[in-house]
C-alpha cells in the first residue's frame, strides 16, 4: 500500500490503482466523461483533473492517468480545479448542447454561463466507443479520422465495415447519445432546468442535490416544448 494526502487527509491506496480509482474509493465524486471502469484510461476529456503537489509547486493532472506515489499531495476540489473543470465543460456544452449528460454535469458544477456560440455537434470525441469496440468487443471496427478540429469517429474510409457486428456496444457506452436533453432553447446553450426551476421533488426531499438522474420530473414534457 502507498499512503498519500487526499484533501488534507492521510489515506492509503493500492499502488496498482490510478489516482481516480483511489479518489473514488474514498467516496469523493470527480466528474468524468471519457472514463469507464472496464476500459483503458484515455485521459482526454480532462474533466477529472486534480491538483497535485505542495505549496506553490502544484500542477493539474488527469487523475485517470496519474499513478499514486508515496506522499503525493492531492486536492480534488481546489478553486483552480473547479475553474478548469467549468471551463472545459463550457467548451463541451458549446459543442454539444443537446447532451443530457453534459447538461446534468453543468448543473452539478453550477456552470452558469456558456460564452460561445453552439456548434450542435453530436459527439464529444471521448473515445469510449472506440475503446469499447476494440477492448471489449475485440472488433476494432471504428477509429478516429481527421486531425484537430476536423477529428471524428468513423469506420475505415467512412464505409460500412465488415468488422462491425452491429453489436451496439458503442451506442451503449456513448455518454452523449444515451438521452437527448429536452431543456435548452435555441437561444441559450445552457439548460440548467434543475437549477433554474423549482424542483417538483423539493418539498419531499428538502434541499436534495438534484442531478436529474433518474428523476427527470422537473424537465419539461415534450408537449410543452415548442
Amino acid at each position, binding site marked *: 500500500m502507498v499512503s498519500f494526502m487526499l484533501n488534507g487527509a492521510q489515506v492509503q491506496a493500492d499502488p496498482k490503482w490510478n489516482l481516480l480509482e483511489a479518489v473514488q474509493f474514498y467516496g469523493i465524486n470527480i466528474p468524468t466523461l471519457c472514463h469507464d471502469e472496464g476500459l483503458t484510461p484515455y*485521459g*482526454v*476529456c*480532462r474533466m477529472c*483533473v486534480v491538483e497535485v503537489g505542495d505549496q506553490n509547486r502544484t*500542477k*493539474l*493532472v*488527469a487523475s485517470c*492517468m*496519474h*499513478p499514486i506515489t508515496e506522499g503525493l499531495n492531492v486536492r480534488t476540489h481546489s478553486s*483552480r480545479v473547479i*475553474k*478548469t473543470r467549468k*471551463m*472545459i465543460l463550457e*467548451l*463541451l456544452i*458549446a*459543442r454539444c448542447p443537446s447532451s443530457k449528460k453534459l447538461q446534468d454535469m453543468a448543473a452539478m458544477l453550477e456552470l452558469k454561463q456558456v*460564452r*460561445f456560440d453552439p456548434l450542435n455537434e453530436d459527439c*464529444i*470525441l471521448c473515445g469510449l466507443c472506440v475503446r469499447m469496440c476494440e477492448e471489449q468487443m475485440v472488433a476494432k471496427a471504428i477509429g*478516429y479520422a*481527421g*486531425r*484537430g*478540429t*476536423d*477529428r471524428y469517429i468513423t469506420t475505415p474510409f467512412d464505409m460500412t465495415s465488415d468488422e462491425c457486428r452491429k453489436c451496439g456496444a458503442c451506442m451503449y457506452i456513448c455518454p452523449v447519445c444515451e438521452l437527448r436533453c429536452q431543456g435548452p432553447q435555441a437561444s441559450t446553450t445552457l439548460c440548467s432546468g434543475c437549477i433554474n426551476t423549482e424542483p417538483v421533488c423539493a418539498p419531499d426531499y428538502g434541499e436534495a442535490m438534484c442531478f436529474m438522474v433518474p428523476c427527470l420530473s422537473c424537465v419539461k414534457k415534450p408537449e410543452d416544448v415548442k
Partner: protein
Amino acid sequence: MKLSSEKELEDLRNEIISGRDPNKLCIAVCGGTGCHAGGCSNVAQEIRTELDSKNLADKVDIRITGCHGFCERGPIVIVYPEGIFYQKVIPRDIKEIIASTIENGKIIDRLLYHDPVSGEKKIRVEDITFYQKQNRLILENNTRVDPAQIKDYLAINGYSALAKVLGKMTPEIVIDMVKSSGLRGRGGGGFPTGRKWESTRIAEGDVKYVICNADEGDPGAFMDRSILEGNPHSVLEGMIIGAYAIGSNEGHIYVRNEYPLAVSNISTAIKQAREFGILGDDILGSGFGFDVKVNRGGGAFVCGESTALMASLEGKPGEPRAKYIHTSEKGLWDKPSNLNNVETWANVPMIINKGSKWYSGIGTESSKGTKVFSLVGKINNTGLVEVSMGMTLREIIFDIGGGIPGGKSFKAVQTGGPSGGCIPESLIDMAVDYDRLMEAGSMMGSGGMIVMDEETCMVDLAKYFTNFLQEESCGKCVPCREGLRRMGDILKDITEGKGSMEDILLIEDLAGMLKDASLCGLGMTASNPVMSTLKYFKDEYLAHIIDHRCPAGVCRELITYGIDADNCTGCGMCKKNCPPGAISGERKETHVLDTGKCIKCGICYDVCKFKAVRKE
C-alpha cells in the same frame, strides 16, 4: 573497410590528413537549404563543367558543404585556402571566378560582401560582422565538411570523441561529464541532458532506445535540418556516445519527409559509418554494438512532441499520451528511452573532446554552451546564427542580424516558434537563455526567432499562431481542440472589429485552462503568443476592440484606403494596378478612390512612389 580499433581509426585519420594538401585550391559551394533554393546546384554544376573544360579538375577540389548560415546572401561560394567569400553567386559568375580567382589569384570586387553600415568590402568570412559576433562551435564544421563524405568528417577529428569514450571511459564517467557540462535539451524544454541520460541508464529493462528528434516543424525554423544536412556525422557520433552511456543498442532518427536532403544525407552517413565499423556490432573493436534507423515522419507538427513522436515511431497515429510515467522509464514500445533533439546530440562530441569545464565556461549561470537560432522575418541578415547563451537580443538582432530593413523600427521578436511568446522592444537588452525567456513569457523552443517591424499587427500575429496550432493540434484532448478553436474565433472577431472587452477576459480564462489542463506541451504552451502579446501590446487589442482601428494597418476589415490630394501627382500607377478599378482620375490630376469598390488589397499603397495613398 571496417575499423576494429581506436588505433586503426587514428591511422586512417592520419592517412587522410597527410593525403590532403592544405594549400590546394578548393571551391566550397554552400549546399544548404537556402542556397539550394537560390540555385546552388546549378552553380556547382557550372563549376565542374568549367574546371573540366580548363583541365583544372586535378588542381582544384570542389566541395558541396552544408549551410553556412548567411542564407540572405546565398548562394555562397568560398575559395580556399585564402577563404575568399563570394556571395549571391549565379552560374554566369563562374567563368569569371575560375579565370580570375582560381587561375590568377585576383579577387572579384562585385561578388564580395559589402558591409551595409561602413560600405567596406569584406574579403574573408572572418571579416564579416555577421560571423564575427557569433560563436560557431557547431555550425563552423558545416563549412568544413562535405556531408556525404565520412572522410571529411574524420579529417576534422571526427569520431575521436567516440574512440575516447569507448576506449577510456565508463558509461558513468560519460554521464558525469555531460551532467557537469550543464548541457540542457535544445529542443525546447531545456531539461538537463545528463540527468535524462542517467535516469534512462538506471531504469529497469534489457532493451533501451535512443531517439533523435529531427521533426522540426516551427514556421521559420531550420536549425536542426541544417545540422542534419550539413554535418550528419556529428549527430550520429553524439547518438552513439549517448547510447553507450545509457546502455542502448538501438537508435531511431525521426526526421520529417519534407526534409529530403536531411533524410538523404543522414542515410548516407549511416551507410558509411556502418562500412567503417562505426555503427553495427562491435564498434571499433570495443564489443559495444549500436545501430540507427531513419524513420521519416509525415510532417505533423505535433509529432515533434516526444510522446507523439514515439507513437508515430510505433506505427500509431501521432498523438501524445500522458507523461506521468517518464519516457526514461516507459518510452518507445514501453521500454526505457532517451529522446534528444538534433542540436543536443551534436553538442555531445564537443563536450567529450574539449571537456565539461570548457563547455560550462560558455554561456550563463543556468544555460551553458551555444545555441543556434534561425533569424527570420523583418531582418536584414536572414540566416542561421550560433551564439553563446546570454547574448542580448539587441546584439543578435542588430549586430549580427543587421537590423530591420527599409529603415523601419523594431517592434518585437517571437522566440520559440508558434508556442513561444513575443518579446517587445522594451526587453531587447535581455540576455537570451532558457530562464530569462521563460520569465518574459516566451521560451527557447528549438530556436526560431521571428523579427517583426512596426508594420506587424500583434493581434493578427497572435491569430496566425493560434490558427497554426489549431490546425496542427491532434484533437485528442478537449482543452487544446475546443479551446484553440474558440481562441481562434475570438481573435478573428477582434481583428474584424467585432470584439468586446469580455473577450479579453474570456481569452485569459481559456489561456489559463489550456496551460493547466492540456494533455501535452503543444496545448500547454499554445496560449503563449496570445498571452505575451496581450501582456506587452494590450493597447493594440484595445484599439481593435474599442476604436475599431488597427494601428499597424494590417487587419483588412479595420482599414480604409484613400488618396492624399496634396501628394498625388496623377501619375496613374495606382489606377493602372487597381484590380477592381476603384481608382479614377485624369492624368496629372488628383486621383480619387471609391471606397465602395475598394477590396483593400493594398496594391495602390505599395506602388505609389509619392506616399499619396493613405492607410488608416
